[in-house]
């Protein structure tokens, strides 16, 4: 007798499983739509899906949603680039050199204990309320997880593999490039992903503090105009954007991690 699961193959199966996650949100949305249509609720504070679609379509037609998304994405990318690069480089430095670690790590750990949003006032004072302070805030959010990930990853590289490099005649630079770097790659990628997540969090904080464009601005605008639908559309766009950015990061780094046995990263 043919096995139905085998016939459909593993891909089809996991596809069906993934779709299972949609059942509850879709049912809830339909139920809410029905409740509002039946006149049981006004849907003013919690607009039904149909209204959200209309709002999103209108925002898209004006090009407003695109403008705000682009502004937000640009900030995140620049902030992520700066924070990620600094975190990687300084983490490499403190991971590789005990002297640098003794000198720098305590200060960095101290700065890390400053609650993230406590940076906002001083950044605004230093850099004004425009782009620079927002990007700086995002960079701070990205920096710490990447720094920490890099530092711990370098320190936990298997000494035995380093010895293999030494026995087969690699220079210290050769060991860094051919042993340490590939060995820290998985942790580094994981820390970039959590850095990206934190970057989005800080971005919202920055945009809530005052911005003339960006999805965060759309949130504030919706609140002031009493437009729950605008707020929800912005929130959904944030979710999609965050997920998309994470997926792109995973796709870009996937070739570096192909060798990994466990914890293979899935989209």
């Amino acid at each position, binding site marked *: 007798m043919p096995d139905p699961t085998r016939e459909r193959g593993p891909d089809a199966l996991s596809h069906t499983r993934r779709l299972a996650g949609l059942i509850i949100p879709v049912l809830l949305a339909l139920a809410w739509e029905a409740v509002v249509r039946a006149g049981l609720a006004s849907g003013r504070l919690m607009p039904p899906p149909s209204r959200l679609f209309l709002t999103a379509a209108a925002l898209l037609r004006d090009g407003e949603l695109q403008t705000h998304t682009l502004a937000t994405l640009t900030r995140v990318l620049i902030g992520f680039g700066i924070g990620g690069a600094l975190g990687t480089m300084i983490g490499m430095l403190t991971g590789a050199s005990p002297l640098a670690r003794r000198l720098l790590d305590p200060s960095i750990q101290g700065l890390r204990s400053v609650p993230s949003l406590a940076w906002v006032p001083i950044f605004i004072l230093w850099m004004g309320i425009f782009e620079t302070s927002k990007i700086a805030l995002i960079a701070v959010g990205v920096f710490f997880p990447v720094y920490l990930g890099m530092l711990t990853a370098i320190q936990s590289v298997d000494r*035995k*593999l380093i010895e293999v490099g030494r*026995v*087969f*005649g*690699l220079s210290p630079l050769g060991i860094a490039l051919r042993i340490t770097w*590939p*060995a820290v790659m998985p942790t580094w990628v994981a820390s970039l992903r959590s850095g990206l997540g934190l970057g989005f969090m800080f971005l919202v904080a920055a945009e809530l503090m005052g911005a003339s464009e960006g999805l965060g601005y759309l949130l504030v605008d919706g609140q002031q105009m009493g437009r729950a639908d605008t707020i929800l559309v912005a929130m959904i766009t944030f979710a999609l954007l965050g997920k998309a950015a994470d997926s792109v990061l995973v796709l870009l780094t996937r070739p570096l991690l192909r*060798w990994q*046995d466990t914890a293979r990263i899935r989209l």
Partner: protein
Amino acid sequence: MKLTINRVGKTYADGTEALRDVQVTADSGEIVAVLGGSGCGKTTLLRLVSGLDEPSSGEIRLDDQVISRTHPSVGAVFQEPRLLPWLKVGDNVEFGGRRLTPAERRRRTEALLERIGLAGYGARWPRDLSGGQQQRVAIARALIGHPGILLLDEPFSALDPFTRATQHTLVLDLWREMRPTILIVTHDVDEAVFLADRIVIMKPRPGRVHEAMSVDHPRPRDRLAPAFDLMKRRVMRAIDRSLSEDRPREGFGASNQSPWV
């Protein structure tokens, strides 16, 4: 390549004396087995010869050159395969031949993979290989540069007896083709008698040479031959003596009921 370990001692920074006054020589192309239990400093000795550590006293020479750092004439196989997990099997073998031209490296890798029974495995990841296969790749990686001396640090101890016997034959075949001097560290009497021209028995705390003996049987050696058994017994008695000097009435054959004598 002739290996001379001349009155070598090693004391670690924490004050532990791992080796004292160790004297071992291996002629060019000879297989010398260093035999002893844990704590004999066997692995320390190999680390010194490979140049990973420096002796506290005495000197180690390869031909006439004193070793003080890692050097290209050594090939090493460790207790675990220690393949680099991010390199494919073929690239792992090539990793050992970094001084060769790329073309020569590829040619020798192909030949060695074929030789160790893993032809066509070059594009696989190490994780897809069994423990025995990985250890064979490690042997190929150590031999690709045609080292003057091959260091083996209990490379077969984690393998099952069937796989181990196959690896022994493989190592001897490769040795016959390339003739490196081999220094193998082991705690397995059978392995030492099967492989070595000479056996150096060590005793612990601190690691010292207890006794050295030659194994004069021609190769290939038959594990089932009476002479092989006799040789094993000679070695066991020597181990016995090394133990009874420190702690009387322990070890093989120390009592009359021992099944070994």
